[in-house]
């Protein structure tokens, strides 16, 4: 046998080289693009249209090699087919269970919606062997179930997972669990990671973003991806990766992200959003809790129904099963026993496994058969798309890492120094730090949530195999009953979600001294503002000496596509039109937009709203940089860090903007364009109009109080400066506004106004601008 194997290996190697030469590849890979490793067939990964050639590659190329080794023909084996099908389907069911469990555990870590979760409690209870066997007409399936330990173990695994999640003890790590946890550098309770991240995810959806979503037509988008990856969205709010995570990982948000219409309709329910609390009011409402309940119940029902119907079917009993070996290979039992790389036929047991796989080559016609791929999709309906293709074992690690583990690692390793402002991770880190300070509010996860506890209890079941420590923790948390059958009563969460989160610093929790960088928690808001108000730093003025804008139209090639001649033509035309504007009346943004529109129309070209906006902004920029104050903003603040520190931070932020601008993000382009026009200083002090009313707004920032609340208090207090602001805003008079050492100019354009930074720290102004504008808008109305 050994000699036979060696000769075969030699031959297979020859076969591989033939492949290599034929396909003109210098480097063969045994691992294919979809992660599947094939038995001893070094297949060039990137040049083969694998899906269409899999039968050639796997069955026609590899099978004869193994038939040689095997000494006889490899034919389909019904029992083996049933066994693989059965195990794969049950593993997919387990994935769905762990997915649901994690979602419920997450809801236990955040404020309650007060939903009674009745539907889930009846649909998601732990299933038993009898639930499966009752009414099941397939004797083969029942026999396979009897021989497996599936239901016997799963209750124990789920209980262990739940106990680790709710426990605060770093040393508690029972086995087995469904979710696999990688080594952590420090211990942060999982429930806390979920609390901090959920709160931050909520904050990442700014009121401006909600307004944006509300205006979308769902018919124009086929998926959530289409919305988030649209040019329009990316140009307005930046890279959507973080936001996508926010939507997908938040237990009360994710049920609304199944389709664009679901999502847009949900966002429409947030009435006139002005702050995160408006979204929270909806998220933590009972109807939304009831929706979570409905979605969870459907997932549980659908998953078990799909599992039972497929395995108890006549097709299963008769072996009429379609397993695509190339799509499902990684999920097979035998795949665990195959080595990852070379030497795939180096032992008899490996050859045996390969032969089992190759038996499936006969199973290439799915007509009238139960299709494993389709059935797995139905069983794992709630599993994320990218995790559906993973084998259970990899899913267990990937799921935990994606939603808890990696973030925990980041929080363990993060310091203020490497906290990248504007990222969700940095915001979560600061929130986590804030909770560690004395006097911070108690976490929701420290209180009971009766409905969620009851749901967890039925999901886990009550296996006698549950470890004593696990049982002890679950009893103490009010999830499992004590020996006397009674539940431990824990205090109910005292606050409403809004009240609770109002105590949690949402922005700049532990700010760097000074004013460098962007606002950590509302970076996307800032980005939105930088676009929606991206003409706010230009020189539009109703008060300075009237003149037609000089414009900054010497190079618009970054905004307009076409040949150099075409672009120059458009530039000249715009300049000509600008020159024709009346000298007595200052140009408005609408004038500039009209010029852009008309110019393009005249040239027989179309212009997008964003091009229109960007060109208008450019027109209204000063042609020659203003006189620039060279002083750094930090010199005025004795508490600022050293200038070099601040410059370094500021430089990093600006470099990031350059990158974003290169990627076509207009907000970033605008900031940089403004920098260019102002000599790259934090803010220019141009010719200050002397006849404007100046209001100094006194606000004392407290790191523990949100900026929005500080402004809200100003409105409530209605002090003289606030009253004066109201008068100015209602009379639509331009005025100057001083906040700390920043000077803003509020300039009216019809009914709307723009808040322009006249002088002071740009980064600080950007941080403050969203809330300041909301504040002023509220005063105006």
């Amino acid at each position: 046998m050994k000699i036979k194997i060696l000769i075969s290996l030699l031959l297979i190697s020859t076969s591989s080289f033939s492949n290599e030469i034929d396909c003109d590849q210098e480097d063969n890979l045994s691992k294919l693009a979809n992660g599947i490793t094939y038995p001893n067939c070094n297949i060039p990964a990137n040049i083969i249209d694998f899906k269409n050639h899999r039968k050639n590659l796997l069955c026609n190329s590899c099978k004869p090699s193994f038939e040689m080794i095997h000494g006889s023909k490899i034919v389909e084996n019904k029992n083996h087919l049933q066994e693989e099908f059965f195990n794969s389907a049950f593993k997919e069911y387990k994935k769905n269970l762990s997915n649901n469990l994690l979602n419920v555990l997450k809801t236990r870590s955040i404020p309650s919606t007060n939903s009674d979760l009745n539907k889930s409690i009846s649909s998601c209870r732990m299933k038993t062997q009898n639930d499966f066997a009752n009414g099941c007409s397939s004797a083969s399936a029942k026999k396979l179930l009897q021989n497996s330990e599936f239901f016997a173990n799963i209750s124990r695994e789920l209980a262990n997972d739940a106990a680790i999640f709710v426990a605060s003890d770093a040393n508690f790590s029972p086995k087995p669990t469904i979710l696999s946890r990688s080594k952590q550098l420090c211990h942060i309770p999982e429930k806390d990671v979920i609390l901090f991240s959920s709160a931050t995810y909520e904050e990442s959806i700014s009121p401006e973003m909600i307004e944006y979503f509300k205006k979308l037509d769902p018919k124009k988008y086929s998926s959530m991806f289409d919305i988030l990856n649209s040019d329009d969205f990316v140009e307005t709010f930046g890279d959507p990766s973080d936001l996508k995570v926010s939507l997908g990982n938040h237990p009360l948000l994710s049920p609304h992200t199944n389709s664009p219409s679901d999502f847009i309709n949900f966002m429409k329910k947030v009435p006139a959003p002005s702050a995160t609390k408006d979204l929270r009011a909806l998220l933590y409402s009972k109807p939304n809790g009831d929706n979570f309940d409905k979605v969870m119940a459907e997932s549980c029902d659908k998953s078990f129904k799909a599992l039972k119907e497929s395995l108890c079917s006549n097709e299963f009993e008769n072996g009429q099963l379609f397993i695509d070996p190339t799509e499902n290979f990684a999920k097979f039992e035998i795949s665990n026993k195959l080595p990852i790389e070379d030497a795939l036929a180096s032992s008899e047991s490996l050859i045996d496994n390969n032969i089992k796989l190759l038996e499936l080559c006969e199973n290439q016609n799915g007509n009238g058969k139960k299709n494993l791929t389709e059935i797995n999709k139905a069983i794992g309906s709630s599993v994320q798309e990218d995790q559906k293709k993973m084998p259970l074992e990899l899913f267990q690690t990937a799921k935990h890492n994606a939603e808890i583990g990696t973030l925990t690692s980041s929080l363990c390793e993060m310091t203020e120094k490497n906290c990248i402002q504007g990222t969700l991770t940095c915001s979560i880190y600061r929130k986590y730090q804030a909770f560690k300070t004395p006097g911070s509010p108690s976490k929701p996860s420290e209180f009971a949530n009766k409905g969620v506890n009851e749901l967890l209890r039925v999901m886990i079941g009550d296996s006698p195999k549950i470890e004593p420590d696990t049982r002890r923790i679950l009893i103490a948390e009010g999830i499992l009953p004590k020996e006397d059958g009674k539940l431990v009563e824990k205090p109910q969460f005292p606050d409403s979600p809004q009240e609770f989160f109002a105590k949690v610093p949402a922005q700049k929790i532990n700010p760097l001294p000074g004013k460098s960088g962007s606002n950590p928690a509302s970076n996307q808001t800032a980005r939105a503002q930088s676009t929606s108000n991206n003409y706010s730093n230009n020189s539009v003025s109703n008060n300075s000496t009237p003149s037609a804008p000089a414009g900054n139209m010497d190079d618009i090639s970054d905004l307009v596509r076409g040949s150099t001649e075409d672009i120059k033509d458009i530039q000249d035309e715009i300049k000509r039109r600008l020159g024709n504007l009346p000298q007595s009346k200052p140009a408005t943004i609408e004038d500039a937009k009209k010029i852009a529109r008309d110019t393009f129309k005249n040239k027989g070209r179309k212009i997008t709203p964003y091009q229109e906006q960007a060109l208008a902004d450019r027109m209204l920029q000063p042609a020659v940089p203003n006189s620039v104050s060279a002083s750094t903003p930090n010199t005025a603040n004795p508490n600022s860090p050293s200038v070099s520190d601040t410059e370094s931070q500021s430089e990093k932020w600006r470099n990031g903007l350059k990158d974003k601008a290169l990627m076509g993000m207009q907000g970033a382009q605008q900031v940089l364009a403004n920098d260019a026009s102002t000599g790259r200083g934090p803010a220019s002090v141009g010719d200050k109009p002397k006849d404007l009313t100046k209001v100094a707004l006194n606000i004392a920032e407290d790191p523990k109080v949100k900026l929005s609340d500080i402004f809200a208090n100003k409105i409530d207090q209605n002090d003289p400066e606030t009253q004066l602001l109201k008068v100015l805003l209602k009379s639509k008079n331009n005025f100057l506004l001083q906040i700390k050492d920043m000077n803003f100019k509020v300039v009216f354009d019809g009914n709307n106004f723009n808040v322009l930074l006249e002088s002071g720290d740009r980064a600080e102004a950007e941080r403050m601008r969203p809330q300041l504008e909301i504040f002023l808008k509220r005063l105006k109305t």
Partner: protein
Amino acid sequence: MRSAIVTFLIFTSFAVHAQEADCEDKTIEEMRPVMEVAAAAQEETVCPNPKKLRGMCMLIDSQDKDPNPQGHFVYKYQRKFLEAACVDVKKDSEEVIAQKISKVWKENENTLICNNTKFDVGNGNIIKFAVNLKFDSFITDMTYWKVNLNKVDETDGRTVLDYVRDQVERNKGLASEPVLRGYYNQLKKAGAKHKSEL
């Protein structure tokens, strides 16, 4: 035994030739409509067009498939790279495609970074992000296209290979360990180095 060997060789030869024919016919046929669309779109494309690389992190995170795949390029991120590098899948050889993409990569390397709560490196190389998400196809493509694998991220001071080594360590005994080891070998074979080797 000899006859068995001869039979096997003949069989293998047939299989390989059949495969070759299949490769050409099917690929061209399948790619034709997509290539027409791509060719039309290219007329309006700035070249190379870094704007096309925008949103790449989300595409890696979602691992979304392209509804109109171009031959064996089935993922949306592949389409983005092809478009950014102005690749003509109909005309360009695999080698030219790799050259064009590695050039675009080099020019835009600083923008191909991700920040994500699923990723433990701030402003981290997108390849590290793909490793973290176990996105095999992306890693295979990057090695095949011979993009620069040896960038040291400012934030963590590590190359991709350093990162994978640390991930292997962190995931010892878990199902992801062999997968990560596979990435390590694959990247090393493609020329990836540790920072200490640069």
